[in-house]
């Protein structure tokens, strides 16, 4: 025991020496940080690390889950996140904290929120930031009290003159909202407060995820001063049968155009606003959103026709993606989406590599001109990492062919390709019972010709394709003699690794595009993560893979066409990506 303490103190002294000009800043909370990280479970990643990302946000070690309280304050972006100081599985969770000026390169800071009062002594869980009218950011988050009940607490910056807002102080009045016999709130299903918004009556509103039996709901609380909160008699919205609503998010979007809208905004004159309600469903482990209108008089969300806030709703991402949260970036007038992607490896592998969990590249999010779905695209700043571009133009991919893309670091790349499909009239009609794109993709791998295709990319591939991850399209006719088509996008991990312990589930999504026009696919490839965007962000799929062969310089990139019709590659641009400072 003493040896452990001594070696930890020694390590800490070394760290503070190395960190040079951070010494003064860290001293105030280093003793807390040391206590938090003291553990024999924590392994300093000294084993080789083929799967750590080059440009996706992840802490140096241990488990991370939900992104928390993303915001911009005085020109600096903040990301907090659920982090376990003691190991590579969920537990002992605190709010870790990093800042950035460009959403791509990050500076770490000591944990901002960790157990310190009865209302969070057993855990500091997810929450959000609200920027008050005077510009001050306030955090609302879920704490676990001594009785293991879920309550909501407030924290504010200790020192607003610190641009990094490293230290936060909690109200002695916490908890602000708690389950009791009167409000009847389920004490183990009351969490994840959203960013608050102001009503016409100048009262703040916030929603918290909850459930009553199988009814998922967003409980609304209101406040005049952000300190005294009252539960509204009615939830903002609910759905019977959807189960627990985790990580709700509620925000306005502009009907036309791609600019962001501030969370409390009523819109500009002559601007039409829609509202988006999003939830993470505990039952299915996916994130879903619905588009609708916000009835400000009744304080109710009304989904548009065709939308229901349950597992039938559209997803932000059809792969490994959860606990997502948006914030309004006032500096660049856009709404940005963060999402957590966990590992697809076994826990034993996570413990050995010493870490688990990454964030996806932040995405700009806006309402499609159809009004029927949201569109996402990686923030432009990620493009600053692009170097050494390879460009292919007007290549024909004959049936049963593949084309290797040379000259890029295939394990750390950004690829964007435009396909022109020929012979649409020859496409098979889609089987009317095929309503689940994930099933379509998992039941037919790339060796099966069906519809037009498959054609797309093979990424993180070994030279002789013992291992590869394929991201591709199939195009079907909607009906016999129809000019309408169904485009399916698949991300197939089934051959991604010789290792048998990984989750290699195949993912699929419909892409709402007209294949008479060029079909686009973009992939952000980063060692053990592939983020794919079909139709310029109309369908997104994130996956995790752990090749044994296709690692580092032994990783290859191919465009392929295993269909029976030729496909034109109008253009393929691939860039090697520089590494970023990822935390």
């Amino acid at each position, binding site marked *: 025991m003493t040896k452990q303490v001594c070696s930890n103190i020694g390590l800490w002294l070394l760290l503070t020496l190395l960190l040079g000009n951070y010494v003064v800043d860290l001293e105030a909370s280093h003793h807390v940080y040391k206590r938090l990280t003291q553990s024999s*479970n924590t392994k300093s990643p000294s084993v080789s690390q083929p799967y750590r990302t080059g440009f996706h946000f992840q802490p140096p070690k241990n488990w991370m889950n939900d992104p928390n309280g993303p915001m911009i304050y005085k020109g600096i972006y903040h990301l907090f996140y659920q982090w376990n100081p003691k*190991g*590579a*599985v*969920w*537990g*002992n969770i605190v709010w870790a904290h990093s800042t950035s000026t460009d959403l791509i390169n990050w500076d770490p800071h000591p944990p901002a929120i960790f157990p310190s009062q009865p209302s969070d002594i*057993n*855990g500091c*869980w997810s929450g959000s930031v609200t920027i008050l009218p005077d510009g001050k950011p306030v955090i609302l988050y879920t704490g*676990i009290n001594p009785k*293991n*009940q*879920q309550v909501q607490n407030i924290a504010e910056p200790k020192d607003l003159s610190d641009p990094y807002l490293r230290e936060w102080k909690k109200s002695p009045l916490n908890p602000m909202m708690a389950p009791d016999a009167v409000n009847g709130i389920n*004490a*183990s*299903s009351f*969490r994840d407060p959203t960013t608050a918004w102001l009503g016409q009556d100048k009262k703040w509103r916030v929603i918290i995820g909850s459930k009553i039996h199988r009814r998922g709901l967003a409980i609304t609380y209101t406040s005049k001063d952000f300190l005294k909160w009252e539960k509204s008699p009615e939830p903002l919205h609910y759905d019977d049968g959807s*189960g*627990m609503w985790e990580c709700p998010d509620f925000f306005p979007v502009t009907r036309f155009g791609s600019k962001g809208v501030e969370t409390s905004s009523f819109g500009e004159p002559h601007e039409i606003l829609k509202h988006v309600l999003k939830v993470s469903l*505990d*039952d299915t*482990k996916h994130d879903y959103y619905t588009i609708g209108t916000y009835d400000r008089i009744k304080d109710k969300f009304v989904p548009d026709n065709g939308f229901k806030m349950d597992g039938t709703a559209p997803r932000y991402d059809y792969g490994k993606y959860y606990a997502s949260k948006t914030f309004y970036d006032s500096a660049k007038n856009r709404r940005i989406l963060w999402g957590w992607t966990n590992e697809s490896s*076994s*826990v*034993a592998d996570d*413990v*050995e590599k010493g870490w688990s969990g990454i964030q996806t590249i932040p995405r700009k999010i806006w309402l499609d001109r159809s009004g029927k779905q949201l569109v996402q695209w990686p923030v432009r700043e990620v493009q600053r990492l692009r170097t050494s571009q390879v460009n292919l133009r007007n290549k024909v991919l004959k049936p049963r062919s593949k084309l290797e893309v040379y000259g890029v670091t295939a394990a750390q790349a950004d690829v964007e390709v435009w396909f022109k499909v020929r012979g649409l009239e020859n496409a098979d009609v889609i089987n009317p019972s095929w309503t689940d794109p994930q099933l379509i993709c998992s039941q037919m791998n790339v060796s099966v010709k069906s519809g037009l295709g498959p054609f797309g990319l093979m990424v993180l591939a070994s030279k002789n394709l013992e291992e590869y991850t394929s991201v591709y399209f199939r195009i079907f006719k909607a009906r016999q003699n129809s000019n309408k088509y169904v485009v399916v996008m698949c991300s197939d991990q089934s051959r991604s690794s010789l290792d*048998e*312990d990984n989750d290699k589930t195949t993912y699929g999504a419909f892409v709402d595009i007209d294949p008479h026009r060029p079909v686009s696919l973009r992939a952000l490839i980063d060692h053990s993560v592939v983020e794919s965007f079909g139709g310029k962000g109309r369908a997104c799929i994130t996956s995790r893979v752990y090749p044994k062969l296709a690692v580092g310089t032994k990783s290859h990139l191919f465009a392929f066409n295993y269909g029976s019709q030729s496909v034109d590659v109008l253009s393929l641009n691939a860039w090697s990506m520089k590494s970023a400072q990822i935390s």
Partner: protein
Amino acid sequence: MNMIKKMKMMVMVMMMVIVSEGSMIEQTCKETPDFNLCVSLLDSDSRSSSADISGLALILIDKIKGLTTKTLNEINGLYKKRPEMKRALDECSRRYKTILNADVPEAIEAISKGVPKFGEDGVIDAGVEASACERGFKGKSPLTSLTKSMQKISNVTRAIVRMLL
């Protein structure tokens, strides 16, 4: 009411309580992939009579913990008896230590605090680790019976944890 009537009432109430507790376990176990295993694991544990679904889940996680310890002991014993299997045994040791040191504590904290999805993750992984260990023997495993037990208990426990979601 006279004394005898009161006694009869008490006995009836006690019986109703006992019967309904028995059927609470039975009702819960009916919704799992292995009713008999579920009932036998819970019935044999005195804590289950006063447990809610979270409590039943925690009891089963304790059984997973017990089986893990038992398997680790078995692995340790095999090093001497089957020295040619050292590599596979090392891998199994790693896998089962993961269940003991990572999956079980995670599941206990998650279920106790009301975020059962992380409990489900831990329980699923117990089955994954057992399978990975088994595979390392390439068909000649001395642990097959223990592996199968872990897979079965993991499936039953997962079903109960999912009731909490």
